[in-house]
């Protein structure tokens, strides 16, 4: 499947895409073979959902988890601090990441 050139996919496993330039609200992008109109402006370097996500789903970037979504996210929706939260504790703590591992295992 060809990727819209305005978007970057950093790893085949990822469920987020990166805006390669600032994309205005209303811009129609092709995501996974489907036309999606952006609900909000997405700035260069920001993320959007490659597919619909359910609350609690891990977000993968570079093929690695960067946190989980706190609510359902539609395909093409902006992924950022309003709906994506670290698994590595508020920012991070010095408990050797045990809390992170604990959460990961539940």
């Amino acid at each position: 499947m060809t990727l819209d050139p305005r978007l970057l996919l950093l790893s085949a496993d990822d469920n987020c895409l990166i805006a390669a330039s600032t994309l205005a609200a209303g811009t129609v992008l092709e995501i996974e073979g489907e036309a999606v109109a952006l609900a909000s402006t997405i700035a260069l370097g920001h993320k959007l959902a490659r597919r619909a996500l359910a609350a609690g789903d891990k977000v993968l970037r570079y093929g690695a988890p960067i946190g989980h979504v706190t609510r359902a996210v539609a395909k093409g929706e902006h992924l950022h601090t309003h709906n994506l939260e670290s698994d590595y504790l508020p920012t991070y703590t010095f408990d050797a990441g045990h809390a992170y591992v604990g959460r990961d295992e539940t």
Partner: protein
Amino acid sequence: MNELPTDPALLLGYPRSDGRKGIRNVVAVAYLVECAHHVAREIVAQFAPRLAETDDDGAAVAEADFDEINVHDAAPDVHLIGFPGCYPNAYAQKMLSRIATHPNVGAVLFVSLGCESMDKHHLVELVRESGRPVEVLTIQETGGTRSTIARGVEWVRRARRTLGAMRPVPMRLDELIVGTVCGGSDSTSGITANPAVGRAFDAMIERGAACVFEETGELVGCEYHMKSRAARPELGDAIVACVEKAARYYTIMGHGSFAVGNADGGLTTQEEKSLGAYAKSGASPIVGIVKPGDIPPTGGLYLLDVVPDGEPRFGFPNISDNAEIGELIACGCHLILFTTGRGSVVGSAVSPVVKVCANPATYRNLSGDMDIDAGRILEGRASLDDVGREIFDVTVALGRGARSKSEMLGHQEFILTYKAFEPIGPGCLPIASVSPVRVIA
């Protein structure tokens, strides 16, 4: 990136007595205390290349000594290295020992004041045993500044003639060690230059090279992902311990983690920010951890632990990018891939630095300093694979004698300060079973 060349004997190197080969044949002039710095610098200055003269638009009006010259056809470069401290430090001694016997170094002149603590006799002996031309000039015993400079210039002239008579031999990719570092990062670094270097690393490792990444302080949040890539379980535990050490050290130093500006650039979480730096490591298994001056015994991907052991004693682990570059070189790196978003211009003594520019606007502004325009990924003019392939090709070209931009501009930054390390723990290194090429005494 399967269409990359499969001939492993792609490179040209100068054979050294320890079995390694160098892609450069540098005369290193090393001051052993700040008090000897000026004398050493004056000796090196006699051999400094002339930069290209340019008009107001930046077009060359006179050729530089360096322009378009393959290193194998030019007179050997003369580089300045050294350590400013007077008090003894085992780390600095090890760093200078490793760099003075680095495969890119063909001859060494040590410049001593005479009363500093650095063990110059041990350094001279190591270099002599390696078969390289070596000399030590002690300013207090050589009649002072003028006569030491004159003696030094004369010695370097002879060493250059000796090295100039050497011819490089074919060198395989599995004899190459490549390091990576990032500096002057911005929001583009993690989406263009860093993952492109990761792809180039994967291609080099597939062909037997050793690749080294570092900055454990910026890998906080990636430790469990790194652990999952460790080739052996005990190595995975050591990686986690290594990042915990870095997090603690940087906290004591008052060094922040996630900043507001990061979120503006599109980063949401700590682990996401760290992954941007981590992307330079590619996707290969991690086969070992090294500390400054430890040389990878096999091919594969290594993590360089740059954070000192014990309680913080000498300040920030590395005060600027060149401190990390120097440590990668002490680990035997022949060449450094330096990713930058805002635009660093540095090079290094001893090993060439390749600048991979993440931001297309920065590239346009600083194109004279940048080797690779990774930002064109953002403009739809290239894919990550395309840029990864270009980084691989540029690495091979430099390994055959082409010069990087920073080399042509005469950059040869070097900085070495006080640190303290314990030896690496058990289980950190793979067993070198087949390749004797990197066995270091």
